């Protein structure tokens, strides 16, 4: 029992030291060895998306949420369909097949409902 925790503590210590050492080395390098030459490209964020323009607190349409929610729902449902497709439709028993069809029917109904309610129109 105590042995397990010892390993865990060791692991924790290594996990803390491992990222700190390169960071410390980089800091030492920048502090004592490299010349300071800041520039536009050097200061830019690297591989972290594009730089933001303007403040984030702006008004945008609430409709966006509806659109995004419907997209999210259908996006996730696709994942549920994948196992059925992966089984090749050959080994599926009749009740399972019916279950898939019911599931698809639910998706179709929700799409029809969202469409008729005007969720998909960008006003």
């Amino acid at each position: 029992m105590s042995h397990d925790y010892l390993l865990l503590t060791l692991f924790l210590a290594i996990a803390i030291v491992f990222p700190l050492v390169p960071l410390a080395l980089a800091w030492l390098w920048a502090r004592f060895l490299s010349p300071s030459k800041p520039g536009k490209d050097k200061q830019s964020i690297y591989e972290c998306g594009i730089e933001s323009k303007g403040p984030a607190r702006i008004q945008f349409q609430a409709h966006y949420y509806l659109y995004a929610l419907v997209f999210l729902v259908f996006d996730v449902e696709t994942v549920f369909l994948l196992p059925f497709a992966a089984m090749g439709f050959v080994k599926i028993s009749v009740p399972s097949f019916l279950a898939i069809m019911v599931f698809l029917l639910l998706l179709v109904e929700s799409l029809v409902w969202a469409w008729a309610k005007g969720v998909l129109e960008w006003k």
Partner: protein
Amino acid sequence: MNSTLLLLKFLAPESILADTALLVLIAGLVKSTASSRNVLLSLTLLGGLTAGACLLYFPDNVNFFHGMVVLDPLTRLVKLAILILSLVTAVFAAGSSVREHFAEYLALILFSTIGMMLLAGTEDLLMIFIALEMTSIPLYILTGYLKKSSASAEAALKYFLVGGVSAAFLLFGLSLIYGVTGCTALQDLAKVPPATFRDPLFLAGVVMAMAGFGFKVAAVPFHLWAPDVYEGAPTPSAALIASGSKVAGFLILAKLLTYGLAKAGGSAVWGAMQPGWLPVLGLIAAASIIVGNLAALSQSNVKRILAYSAIAQSGYMLLGLMAADKTGLSSVLFYVIVYALTTLGAFGVCAIVEQRRGGSQLHHFEGLHQSAPGLALCMGVFMISLAGIPPLAGFFGKFYLFAGALGSVATKDGHMGLLWLLIIAIAFNAVSLYYYLIVLKHVFVIPSSAEPAPRSPRSATGTLVGLLAIAIFALGIYPGLLLDPIHNAVKTATWFAAKAAAIATSAAQPKTLQGTTK
């Protein structure tokens, strides 16, 4: 037969309700007119009645997946009660201020009903949580349904935030219970050796789970959402929250405590309390009775009075749960069903008064006996039944409840048993008479200052309110109408037999028993 199909057969009522809800959603896409509202309502009622017929048609007792889905006379009875309460709510909705997206409103009532029915028919911690969420999420939406009313939005936000936090508490509590005992099925929990129940972690889990359920049944100190929700929500939504959701909540709380955690009760006897859920329940019940009744005294809105009265009534019902035997369970079931019918009727009267006079403040009820004598009489029946005055059903329910709680603990050892709770309950029941009669004073005594409104045509809501009042009256005179089915159903609840046997064996060693008491 394939197990999926078998499951579908026994969950046929729930499946039919789900199909009905989907059908109503599609039917609601047709352009909404007054007649299409009636079509939608008829569809809902048809689906509900079919589901009810299915419930009665499959009399088998089944237990799926180790208690995940259970069907026995007890769950069938409660499911039927929930179904009836929800259908009445649906009829109320047709005559209410909910005009926009009416089909979705009905569908949400049905979805919530499915959650309540699943909740009533499960004996597994995981399913309890999922069914509870299935019940609550549609209720949050139903509360905030009046998009243009800020009170409705505020109520929905409060309900949602408090509900979310309490769901987290419940889940964490259940996970602690699972962590200590290693099982989620109530039938396994009941077999866990009693030594486990002394684990502080387990007791923390029990208290957290009770906080979650305390929110569901609006018991002090988890009650603060209730007055705002009852007042701000559309009246049918509030009626559903106060009736169906409460019936399901009390059954599952009873199952969890008296079945799964039967041995973890401890003792709430005055002067000899022992850790467990009984003392917690006792304190919650006492606080609910005191706070609910006192806070109701200063309200000026009838719906808020009903909310605080609901809190107090929850306290009485928790008292019945503390009996933890067959009599206690039957009395709680009888009381909660009668209470649900009564409060549903009172909300129906509020809905009609709101339609005619534009609000449900006390002064809106003035002179009701002149403009609508029938309605005033019904309100009188509901209020007097809530106050517990014979010969109405509320009196008999309360009597049975208190007698059950008193008789559950033997008082021969010189201690008072649960008498301290009963004294609080009866004293504050006298207090409650004041605010119920204040409502009736406005209905019957104070003449209306406003111009008498033209008499409105008879509505479906009014008819149902009348039927509910007749039911309350009939159940007061012949309680057996409801009590006999409940007795027969509770008789099949096998878990109390195991508990009685456990008590008998522990009574065989009186010395060890005394040792633990002192």
